[in-house]
């Protein structure tokens, strides 16, 4: 199994703008990782560089310390599971699973043993003898996955949006299977997806990409609770993080007529930081408080959405550099909360749940967050 290292990788397509800006990354043996980002963020380019379908313009790919940058895909021992299952439907499930082994001239006896093991892991033992034709989408996708797992020499399995074709209500079953398999086998898994649930559920470490750059690497908790970049705050979570334009004084952010207390250290750093300043706070962490409470912001509800499980209120406040220009934020309230358009809400931004961003990057009391965000 394998440790994958990306050293100073960047990529520019012929004549185009850079698809991938310089990045460094290490994926440990046996870990589960996700590359998460919107379409066009560079995640598929990165996937193709790892699998060997694409040679990076600059930088090196190392698998277990060995430079494979110039090695073709078949020499890398990396298996891929695509969005649409690639299965030979006239072959039996057994023969489909055996295919990569037969290609490598593994003795039949060994093939049988290995395929039966994988069949059991996939809960498909009873289906090994039947033809693949007519199987459901999730069964076909399990076979694609099995074809990657069946090879003992496989270093890593790369998944490209593997659950796109699966019925939404059956997705969790396949996700559970993927998790169980990873618990049972020490293979390195890399999921490429635009779906936050996919990434946060399947991977222990998630790499968030935007416009060809890695904006944060971290655990699901890190990404939700401590977004290092405004893009992560926006992209992870539904609805995404609120961003309130502000200025800073000694120990507070100034939003319109309101002062929101902050760590003095953070404020000191923000004063010398470049680019616009915004305060980030998630809709679920805003707290309703008594009118005129210290540090709270006065807002006027403009729109209420009853979502069954909770209520999302959009509320406007006057703030930022331009007092006349009302800004909007969202607040998530418990199911059944009675709130109407036009109503005044005083909202507190809890210190521990509020992050100050300069030019998109989190300003932290220490230097750790910034370093982390560059992976």
């Amino acid at each position, binding site marked *: 199994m394998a440790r994958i290292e990306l050293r100073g990788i960047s990529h520019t397509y012929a004549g185009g703008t850079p698809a991938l800006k310089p990045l460094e990354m290490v994926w440990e043996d046996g870990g589960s990782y996700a590359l998460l980002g919107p379409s066009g963020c560079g995640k598929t380019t990165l996937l193709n560089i790892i699998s060997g379908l694409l040679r990076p313009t600059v930088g090196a790919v190392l698998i277990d310390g060995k430079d494979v940058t110039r090695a073709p895909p078949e020499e890398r021992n990396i298996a891929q599971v695509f969005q649409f299952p690639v299965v030979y439907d006239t072959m039996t499930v057994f023969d489909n699973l055996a295919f990569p082994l037969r290609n490598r001239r593994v003795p039949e006896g060994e093939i049988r043993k290995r395929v039966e093991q994988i069949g059991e892991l996939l809960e498909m033992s009873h289906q090994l003898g039947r033809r693949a034709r007519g199987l459901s989408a999730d069964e076909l996708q399990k076979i694609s996955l099995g074809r990657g797992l069946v090879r003992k020499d496989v270093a890593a399995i790369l998944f490209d949006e593997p659950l796109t074709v699966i019925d939404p209500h059956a997705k969790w079953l396949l996700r559970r299977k993927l998790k169980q398999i990873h618990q049972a086998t020490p293979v390195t898994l890399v999921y490429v997806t635009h779906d936050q649930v996919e990434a946060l559920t399947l991977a222990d470490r998630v790499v968030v990409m935007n416009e060809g750059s890695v904006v944060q690497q971290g655990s699901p908790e890190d990404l939700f609770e401590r977004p290092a970049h405004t893009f992560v705050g926006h992209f992870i979570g*539904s609805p995404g993080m609120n961003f309130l334009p502000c200025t800073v004084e000694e120990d507070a952010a100034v939003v319109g007529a309101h002062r929101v207390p902050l760590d003095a250290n953070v404020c000191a750093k923000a004063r010398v930081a470049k680019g616009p300043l915004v305060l980030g706070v*998630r809709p679920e962490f805003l707290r309703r408080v008594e009118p005129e409470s210290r540090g709270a912001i006065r807002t006027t509800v403009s729109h209420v959405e*009853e979502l069954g499980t909770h209520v999302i209120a959009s509320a406007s406040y006057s703030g930022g550099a331009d007092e006349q220009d009302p800004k909007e934020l969202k607040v998530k309230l418990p199911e059944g909360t009675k709130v109407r358009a036009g109503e005044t809400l005083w909202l507190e931004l809890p210190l521990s749940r509020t992050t100050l961003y300069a030019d998109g990057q989190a300003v932290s009391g220490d230097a750790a967050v910034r370093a982390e965000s560059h992976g």
Partner: protein
Amino acid sequence: MKQGIELDHVTRIVDGETYLSNITMTLEPGGFYVLLGRTRAGKTSLLRLLAGLDRPTTGTVKQGGVDVTRRAAGQRNVAMVYQQFVNYPSLTVFENIASPLRLRKTVSQEEIDRKVRDTAKKLRLDALLQRLPAELSGGQQQRTAMARALAKDAELLLLDEPLANLDYKLREEMRVEIRRLFQGRHDAVVVYATADPVEALLLGGNVIVIDEGRVIQRGATLDVYHTPATERVGEVFSDPQMNVLQVDVTDGAEKQIRFADEVQFPAPAHLKDLPASAYRLGIRANHVRLAQVAESDVRVPAHVEIAETSGSETLVHATHGKTTLTAQVEGVFRVAPGTKIDLYLDARRLFAFEPSGRLAAAPRMDHGTH
């Protein structure tokens, strides 16, 4: 249009397969209707029939009091937006939006100009009017298709899962916009098909729940959500899936409910009047928690299958015997498959369905929630 759309015993059968079954209903002018159903429930079949693209096998369709059953799509005043982004690739955004107006020939260039710009502004396309569809993002392409449908001023506007092909972030932004777009169209009937319960709730208005080609419930969207007439409606109108427990209600000094072998609890107030019998109890995932909150919460020991997280919330799927239960909790919660946990069901939030699926009792909506 004064009388809206009237469907009278409409059935559509193709090659022996029933696509739509005996639908009778009236869609009021100015009404906003969400057509909610799972994949292959008949949503697209119904929209195509309303558009005049398909004919019913039996039954009639009236539009504004006139029988249009046999009238072709081109002869009806209908606009439709599809799940796939459909635009004219060689025309600019401006010309795409203008195209139905140009077809009409009676609209002046001035009027076209004004209409296109107004509509483009509403859909935030005003800076993109000279672009070609290929130069737009998916979200912008779908906005263009919607602008074309809106600019047409049709009596009947049909939208077939218009957001289904968008990334979830874009979908999140656009579904908020959509409601604003269609408010204040008092002349037209708008039908919006979706498989997504959250989208249905966001859009509000009235909901038509469709399943296996039949309309299984109609009403104000929130009412149907809170009082599903059958277990199937509850299922279609819940995401994540509604939990269902097979139980026995027994008489005694106090009415008891027994689930599986080891879980027994007193019937909550709203289920006290149920005659003793077998029932299926439904409870939405957000009313199943991982810690006891109310005294009446029902503890169910379970084994974790998987925890799925979106960041904002986590779905914990767990099994008790043969029953799978899902709890929806706030934030990121990580727990390994196989872990033993206790689930707590908010007894005040239980729906009771008869074995036939019919609703026997629903939670009272007046008490506190969390």
